[in-house]
């Protein structure tokens, strides 16, 4: 049963071909073998997960079906609160009493839908920076090449899905932290529309940029997860109240494979401006465009005029908002923070109040410019990153920032799906972003699904998964 998607596992569970307990044992065996090399988990919930899986089997046998996540093993990034574990944010600094040992609403929703939470996954500290090997936490590694970074900050969830340690999981995304590990690990990840998934019980990085999103092998799997995750919760002041009652059903019913009538804009100028773009990236984007055209879409070229403004706004706003949250602790516990974390967040001290407000104002202007583009096309596609996963030997934040194309879209709050789009000559995954109109999460999922009905990149597994 290795390599199953959530969709396939759900079918097999209901057909009696597998059990939730058996599925959990299999992914657990994989974790026993691979986690010491991959650094996916901060902790595993062996007893609770086993009990939940056995309950899922009993319920199915009794005719109780909680839906498509029933009995499915999922991993949770350790900046989201979970019952029975003091969330760390992969930091020495976080208060163990934070969120009082309760599930975040989004985690509670997954549990109520029958999901089996296998454990807490590694992250960059407080969802920013790079791993600091001097701190007492695992260094996450990429299953496609453990000498490379799996991307971040939802590193463990990305690597865990790719290696088959669970079938899906939660990430968070403030500048690309769902989409970057999805890209580097060859899986699918969604940054939903801002406010669609409530963030209560999630350690903040940038209040006006943070999103919680699903990560899994396929767009169809992400749709199943989002159907459970989305919806208002009053504990998040940014959570949307205006969703129609049948809104979440559209995430899965939109997945027909037929894109007839849909207009897709291909944005090539962003990767073209990046230094050292991998030569495999432009043809991979062309191949995605061709696949979407084959699915019935009308494909046209577009240019996003304000990309640099949106990217700059993301950095300025994130640094300012993160410093607002961390300032007190950074004053008293500077060296307890990881070196990359404190290097990024301290930039907030170098910005003025006017810089922050100006960035929010510029963000609004740039969104208006992008709105004009999205009035002419339903979605825009552009690469997620300029390269495959970078080696740990020569990784640095400044270089990385020029090779990822995700942060600009956090400034927009728009739904963005990252989906596998091929491989580099070295065999590392590449990825495409599908950027949609606000609340058109179903559309970006449908585009990703249509792509995945015509390609197999998302089904390939790294060799380590079969070692």
């Amino acid at each position: 049963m290795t390599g199953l998607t959530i969709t396939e596992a759900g079918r097999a569970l209901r057909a009696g071909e597998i059990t939730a307990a058996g599925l959990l044992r299999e992914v657990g065996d994989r974790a026993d073998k691979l986690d010491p090399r991959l650094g996916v988990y901060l902790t595993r919930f062996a007893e609770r997960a086993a009990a939940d899986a056995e309950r899922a089997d009993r319920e199915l046998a009794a005719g109780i079906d909680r839906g498509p996540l029933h009995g499915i093993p999922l991993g949770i990034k350790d900046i989201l609160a979970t019952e029975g574990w003091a969330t760390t944010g992969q930091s020495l600094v976080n208060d163990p009493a934070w969120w009082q040992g309760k599930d975040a609403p989004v985690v509670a929703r997954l549990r109520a839908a029958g999901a089996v939470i296998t454990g807490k996954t590694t992250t960059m500290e407080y969802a920013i920076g790079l791993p600091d090997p001097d701190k007492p936490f695992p260094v996450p590694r990429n299953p496609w090449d453990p000498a490379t970074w799996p991307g971040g900050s939802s590193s463990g969830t990305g690597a865990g899905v790719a290696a088959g340690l669970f079938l899906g999981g939660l990430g968070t995304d403030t500048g690309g932290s769902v989409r970057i590990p999805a890209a580097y690990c060859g899986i699918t990840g969604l940054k939903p529309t801002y406010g669609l998934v409530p963030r209560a019980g999630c350690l903040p990085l940038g209040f006006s940029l943070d999103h919680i999103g699903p990560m899994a092998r396929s767009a169809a799997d992400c749709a199943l997860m989002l159907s459970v995750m989305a919806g208002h919760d009053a504990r998040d002041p940014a959570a949307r109240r205006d969703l129609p009652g049948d809104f979440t059903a559209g995430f899965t019913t939109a997945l027909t494979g037929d894109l007839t009538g849909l207009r897709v804009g291909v944005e090539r100028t962003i990767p073209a401006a990046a230094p050292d773009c991998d030569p495999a990236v432009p043809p991979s984007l062309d191949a995605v465009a061709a696949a979407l055209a084959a699915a019935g879409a009308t494909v046209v070229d577009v240019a996003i005029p304000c990309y640099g403004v949106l990217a700059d706004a993301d950095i300025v706003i994130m640094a300012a908002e993160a410093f607002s949250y961390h300032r007190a602790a950074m004053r008293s516990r500077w060296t307890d923070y990881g070196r990359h974390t404190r290097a990024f967040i301290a930039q907030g001290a170098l910005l003025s109040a006017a810089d922050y407000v100006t960035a929010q104002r510029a963000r609004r202007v740039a969104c208006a410019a992008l709105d004009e583009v999205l009035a002419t096309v339903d979605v825009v596609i552009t690469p997620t990153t300029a390269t495959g996963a970078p080696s740990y030997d020569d990784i640095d934040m400044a270089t990385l920032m020029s090779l990822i194309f995700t942060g600009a879209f956090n400034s927009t709050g728009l739904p963005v799906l990252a989906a596998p789009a091929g491989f580099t000559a070295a065999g590392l995954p590449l990825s495409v972003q599908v950027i949609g109109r606000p609340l058109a999460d179903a559309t970006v999922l449908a585009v990703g699904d249509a792509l995945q009905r015509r390609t197999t990149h998302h089904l390939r597994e790294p060799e380590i998964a079969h070692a």
Partner: protein
Amino acid sequence: MPDLTDQPAVTDLTDLTDLTDLPALPRVPDLELVRAMTAAAGLTPAPAELSALAAAYPALRVAADRLQAIAGDTDPAPVFDPVALFPLARAGRDA
């Protein structure tokens, strides 16, 4: 709305001049600026960290200043909504 057509797609850090309409400021070495600002914020970076922050500072400053030219007279994106901030008071009014 300001014209965005001339905005580069990606921040070009090779030319740090003429990116905004802000008047030129007296030049203060970045290391001194960063040392002063981190000290004012109560942070205690080591000398090597201060140097790294100073090295990264020009790019951050360009990013922040470039946005000034875009913002025009636009209101901030976050919307202040007193109705949402006073749910108990609203409930009392409606009771």
